[in-house]
C-alpha cells in the first residue's frame, strides 16, 4: 500500500468514466444495428454532446471577457439607457471580430485568393498541434498507469539538447542523420522520464516531486550547456545552439510554401503506436491494470515497480518526440533554453481533454493547436491578448470533466444508463485501506 501514489489521478476521472463503461457494455452485442443504436445514444446523451456544449460554454465565457474589456463596449455601456443598440452592436463587433480572427488564423482564411493560400492557417494549426499531440500522448500514457508526469518540460529540453547536438554537430548522410537525431532525442526524453520511473520504483520517491524538480534541473543544465558547454555556438555570446544541419531537418510535407513537416506524420504514427500499445499489447494491459489498481495488479503477478519504470520510459520518449520535433521541425535555426515553449504543461491539458485515450489526445491536440495558431492572428488583428486562449482551453477541460454541470446549465436530461451508482466502487477502494 505504501507506494501507492496518494495523489495520482485514477486512469479515468470518476465523472468522465461514466460514459465509457456504458459503451463498453454495448460492445458484446456485435450485430450492426445495436452498435449504431449505441453510437446514436452516445451522441445524444453521452460525451460527444457534452464535449460540444463544453466548447460552446467556454467560448461564451471567453466572449464575455472580450466584450467586458473592450474599449468601445465600455464607452457605449456608459450611455446604455439612451441608446442600448450601440452597446449590443459594439459587443457583437468585439466578439465576432475576435472569433472570426481566431477562425481565420487557424482554419481557413477567406481573405486569400486561392484555396491553396486560404488553407495555410490550417496547416499552421497542424504544425502547432504536432508537439502538443506527442507530449500529450506521453502524459496520457502516464495517466493510464496512474503516474502524473508534470516533467514534460525537462524531458523536452533534454530531448532537444541531445537530439539537437546530433543534428548540428554530427556529419551523416541524408536520411540516416535525420533518423539518428530523432532517435537520440527520443532516447533523451526517455532517459529523463525513465529516471523518474526508476526513482519511484526503487525508492518510492513521488513522481510529482521528482518530475517538477527534474524540470528545473534540466532547464539549468541546458542553460549551462548553451552558455559554456557543448551546445554553445562557437564565437557567439548568445545562449543559443548552432542551427541544425540540412540533412537532419524534417522535410516539408506540402512543399516550401507551407511549414507542415514530417513531424506530423511521425505524430500520427506515435498515436497509432500508443493506441496499439495500450489496447492491444500485453504490456499495455499490464499498464492499465496497474493504473486501475496497483494492489490488484500486484496480486495478479504484475511487477508494479517495473511497470512504473517502463511507463515513464515510454512517456518520456513520447514527450521527447515533442522536444526533438521542435529542434528538427519548428525552430531549426538553433534553440535556446525555452525551446519547450510551455508545451510540457499544455500537454497535461491536452491529455486531460483527450481523456488519456490516444485518439482523443490526437483530436484535443489539433483543437489546442488551432487555438494556438488562431490566437496570434486574433492578437494581431483585434488586440485581444493571447491569454484568452488559455482561459477558453482550461474552461473546456473543466466543463468536459464535469458532465453534470454542463447538463444542469443546458437542462439536458440525465441519461438513465449512466448511473451514479456505478461510482461507489471508489468508496470500497478507500474502505479497503
Amino acid at each position, binding site marked *: 500500500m*505504501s*507506494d501507492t501514489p*496518494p*495523489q*495520482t*489521478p485514477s486512469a479515468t*476521472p*470518476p*465523472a*468522465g468514466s461514466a460514459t465509457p463503461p456504458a459503451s463498453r457494455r454495448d460492445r458484446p452485442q456485435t450485430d450492426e444495428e445495436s452498435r449504431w443504436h449505441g453510437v446514436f445514444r452516445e451522441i445524444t446523451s453521452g460525451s460527444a454532446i457534452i464535449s460540444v456544449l463544453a466548447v460552446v460554454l467556454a467560448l461564451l465565457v471567453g466572449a464575455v*471577457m472580450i466584450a467586458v*474589456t473592450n474599449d468601445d463596449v465600455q464607452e457605449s455601456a456608459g450611455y446604455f439607457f439612451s441608446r442600448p443598440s450601440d452597446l449590443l452592436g459594439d459587443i457583437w463587433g468585439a466578439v465576432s471580430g475576435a472569433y472570426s480572427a481566431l477562425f481565420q488564423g487557424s482554419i481557413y482564411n477567406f481573405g486569400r485568393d486561392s484555396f491553396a493560400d486560404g488553407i495555410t492557417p490550417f496547416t499552421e494549426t497542424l504544425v502547432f498541434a504536432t508537439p502538443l499531440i506527442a507530449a500529450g500522448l506521453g502524459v496520457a500514457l502516464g495517466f493510464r498507469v496512474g503516474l*502524473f508526469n508534470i516533467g514534460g518540460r525537462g524531458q523536452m529540453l533534454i530531448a532537444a539538447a541531445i537530439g539537437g547536438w546530433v543534428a548540428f554537430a554530427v556529419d551523416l548522410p541524408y536520411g540516416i542523420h535525420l533518423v539518428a537525431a530523432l532517435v537520440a532525442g527520443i532516447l533523451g526524453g526517455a532517459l529523463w522520464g525513465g529516471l523518474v520511473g*526508476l*526513482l519511484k520504483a*526503487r*525508492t*518510492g*520517491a*513521488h513522481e*510529482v*516531486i*521528482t518530475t*517538477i*524538480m*527534474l524540470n*528545473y*534541473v534540466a532547464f*539549468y*543544465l541546458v*542553460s*549551462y550547456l548553451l*552558455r*559554456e558547454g557543448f551546445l554553445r555556438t562557437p564565437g557567439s555570446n548568445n545562449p543559443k545552439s548552432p542551427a541544425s544541419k540540412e540533412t537532419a531537418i524534417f522535410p516539408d510535407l506540402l512543399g516550401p510554401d507551407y511549414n507542415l513537416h514530417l513531424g506530423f506524420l511521425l505524430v500520427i504514427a506515435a498515436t497509432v503506436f500508443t493506441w496499439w500499445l495500450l489496447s492491444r499489447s500485453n504490456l499495455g494491459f499490464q499498464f492499465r491494470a496497474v493504473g486501475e489498481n496497483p494492489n490488484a495488479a500486484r496480486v495478479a503477478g504484475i511487477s508494479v515497480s517495473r511497470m512504473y519504470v517502463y511507463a515513464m520510459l515510454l512517456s518520456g520518449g513520447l514527450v521527447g518526440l515533442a522536444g526533438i520535433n521542435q529542434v528538427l521541425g519548428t525552430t531549426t535555426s538553433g534553440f535556446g533554453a525555452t525551446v519547450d515553449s510551455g508545451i510540457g*504543461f499544455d500537454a497535461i*491539458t491536452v491529455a*486531460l481533454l483527450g481523456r488519456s485515450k490516444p485518439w482523443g489526445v490526437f483530436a484535443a491536440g489539433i483543437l489546442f493547436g488551432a487555438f494556438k495558431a488562431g490566437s496570434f492572428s486574433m492578437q494581431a488583428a483585434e488586440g485581444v*491578448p493571447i*491569454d*484568452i486562449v*488559455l*482561459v*477558453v*482551453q*482550461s*474552461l473546456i*477541460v*473543466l466543463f468536459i*470533466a*464535469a458532465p453534470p*454541470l454542463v447538463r444542469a446549465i443546458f437542462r439536458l436530461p440525465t441519461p438513465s444508463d449512466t448511473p*451514479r451508482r456505478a*461510482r*461507489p466502487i*471508489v*468508496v470500497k*477502494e*478507500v*474502505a479497503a*485501506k
Partner: protein
Amino acid sequence: MSTIAPVIVPTQPTPPENGPATAVIRNWKTPIGLGVFTVLGAIMLVGFGRDGISTMVLSTTSDLIQLPAVDLPTRATGIVVSLLLLAIAAWSAWLVRGARKTPIWLIGLFAFLLLLGFLVWASAGASIPIPGLLFGSLSLAVPLIFGALGGVISERVGVVNVAIEGQLLAGAFTSALVASITGQPLLGLLAAMLAGVLVAFVLAAFSIKYFVDQVIVGVVLNVLVSGVTGFLFTQLLAPNAATLNQPPKFDRINIPLLSEIPILGPVVFRQTLIVYIMYFAVIAVYVGIFHTKWGLRLRAVGEHPQAADTVGINVAATRFWNVSLAGAIAGAGGAYFTLGSVGAFGKEMTAGAGFIALAAVIFGRWDPIRATLAALLFGFASNLQSVLSIIGSPVPSEFMLMLPYLVTIFAVAGLVGRSRGPAASGKPYIKS
C-alpha cells in the same frame, strides 16, 4: 541516487520509532548517506581546496550589538570540516552497528557543517553577509510557506491541492489591484485571501460536488488563473499601471528587543506584517491540526471518510470549508509577491512557486512544521545562489540554481522514501 538505492531495498525502508520488533533491524541507510556526502564534501573542500580568507559578516550596520566579522582560512577550514563530517559519519555507523538510531540532531549538525564548509569554500577571498543571506532566504520562502500550509490543510482533509500555484497567482493579482485602488495594503491582503478562496471554491465544487479528479481540476485551475490574470493584466493593468498596478507595500515593523538578537533578530523580527502573520499561521495550523477537535475531524475525513461519516461528521462540508480555508492561506502568500517583495504585479510572477510549495508539502510529509522547514530550505538554496553570484562563485551559477532541486530529489529518494500521504487524499467520497 541510484547507487544508494540497491542498499536500501533489503533493509526496512522506514523503521517505526521504538517498535519492539524492529530492535534488531540495522538500518544502514543513514550512515551510507552520510558517508557519500562526506566523500563528496571532502573532494570539494580538500581535493579542490581553495586558498584565501573567507569572511563571514555577522551583523548589519543598524544592529545594536555589533558582532565582529569572522575570518576563516579557507583551506584549513575545509580540512577541519571534512574531518568533522567523517567523525559524524563514523559515529553514525557505530550507532547503527549497535542497532541504535542516528539521532536527528546529529544529521542536522552534519548538514550545518557541510553547508558551512561549502559557504567558506565558495567565498574564498570574499565576504558573505550572513544576515542578508538569511533575510533573503526567508523572504523567498514566505510565499512557499503560505502555499505549503494551504497544501497541508487541503491534503489532510482529502483534497489534493495542485492549484496552489493558481491561488498564489490569483492572490498576487487581486492584492495588487485592490491595494492600488484603495491605497491600503491590508485591504489588498484581504482581497488576496478572498481570491484564494474563490479559486478554492472552484476546486472544492468540482472535486466534491461533481467528483472530478482533483489533480485534473488543480492543473486546469492553474491554467485558468494564469489565463485570466494574464488577460486582465494586458487589458487593464498594463495600460493603467499608474492607477491600477502600483500597490503600496507593507511597512517593516521592528519588534523591540527581539529584533536586536544577534544574527537572527534582524532576519526574523524586522519584517512586514504579512511575515508575522505567517509565523502565526504556521503555529496555528500545527496546533489546529494536531491538538484540536477541528484538526481531528479534518484528519479523520482525510484518512477515512467513511469512518468519519459513520460517527456523524459531514464529510462534504468539512472538506469544502477546509479547502476554502487552505485557499485563503495560499492567497495570502500570493499577496506577499505584490505587497511584500516585488511591488507591482507581473504576468506569471509566481513562476512556479506553487509547485515548489507542493513539493514542500510532500517533502515535509504533510506536516505543517516540516513543510515550513522544507520551504525555508528551498528559499535558502535559491538565495544562496544569488548571493554567491554577486561575490563571484567558482561554481557556474546554473549549477547553484540547480542545487535545491537536486537536494530535494536526493532527499525525497533517500531520506523521505516511501512517504505516505493521507489515505483518502485525492479520492472523492460518495455517500452511499
